[in-house]
């Protein structure tokens, strides 16, 4: 564990202690620290911007209501992502995914509009980055949920195999297998993109 991570854990614990006494201000600081990451995860799981915002809000409300049951056996981040994962699974059961695939490109475009500063300095590379991000997002959307969860938690959230195993409730060996398959899936999809770009 890095010293920075340890400091984060101590700070998290202090906020959790206050949040357990239903201190909304302390819980607000937890929200500030994790809202972007939780939303990023949820958005890639539910594949719809509005739904992702609703689910993320639900994650934090549920966490606030249940924070007194948080026993510190896992990190706060793992606990929050576990709630997010469970809510995404619940939502996926209710909503059919195919109806939302067409909206992915819109979501990606909205996000990339925020990167105006990069465009000003190097428009060509920014354009390529934007295109690659779009291909990546589409590839992620096309991937099965169980592979996508592991890939996002490991490669984007930088979670350890053990943390992912706790979050998703699967053995560590399965985490590794799924991560390998998810990356192989992406490699396969990106191969086509890169060959196309070179020709």
């Amino acid at each position: 564990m890095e010293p920075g991570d340890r400091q984060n854990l101590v700070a998290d614990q202090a906020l959790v202690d206050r949040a357990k006494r239903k201190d909304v201000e302390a819980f607000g600081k937890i929200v500030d620290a994790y809202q972007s990451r939780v939303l990023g995860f949820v958005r890639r799981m539910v594949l719809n911007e509005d739904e992702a915002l609703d689910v993320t809000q639900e994650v934090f409300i549920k966490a606030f209501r249940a924070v007194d049951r948080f026993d510190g056996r896992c990190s706060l981040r793992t606990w929050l992502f576990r709630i997010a994962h469970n809510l995404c699974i619940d939502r996926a059961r209710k909503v059919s995914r195919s109806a939302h695939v067409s909206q992915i490109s819109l979501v990606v475009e909205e996000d990339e509009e925020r990167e105006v500063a990069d465009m000003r300095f190097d428009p060509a590379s920014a354009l390529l980055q934007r295109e690659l991000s779009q291909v990546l997002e589409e590839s992620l959307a096309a991937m099965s949920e169980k592979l996508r969860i592991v890939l996002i938690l490991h490669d984007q959230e930088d979670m350890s195999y053990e943390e992912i195993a706790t979050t998703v409730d699967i053995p560590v060996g399965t985490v590794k297998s799924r991560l390998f398959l998810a990356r192989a899936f992406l490699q396969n999809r990106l191969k086509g993109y890169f060959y196309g770009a070179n020709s």
Partner: protein
Amino acid sequence: MSQQDWINKVMTETPLTAEETLLLEQELASQEDVRSLVAALPQPEPSMAWRSALNEELMKAAPKPSRKTWLYWGSGALVGGLACWLAFAVLIPASLSQGLRETSQANNEALAQDLLQGHENDSSAVLMGIAAPDLMVLNSSD
């Protein structure tokens, strides 16, 4: 162990042997370029409106102060208020009456001084023949 067998085991999530796990670790290490691509994906930032709506929901979810809490703080405030009122009622009139006493004493002394001065002036006037003693009596009876 053939490559195909290994892939099948990975795909069906069958528990791997130590040797197969080592191979999986090596394959994962060779996929680091994919990892960096995924890590570089932009994270969305929720809007202020979203945050404000969440805050409202959190406030709703926060437990309201119970009746007992209100009674506890309310009775404390009541006792404090009574103590202040009593202190005001006891200490302020005392200091006020002391002030009045001092003022009336000062007034009495000034009146006595004036009377004495008036008497002395009248006596001097009689002695100097400016005024007659009976006139003084008449004047004083007026």
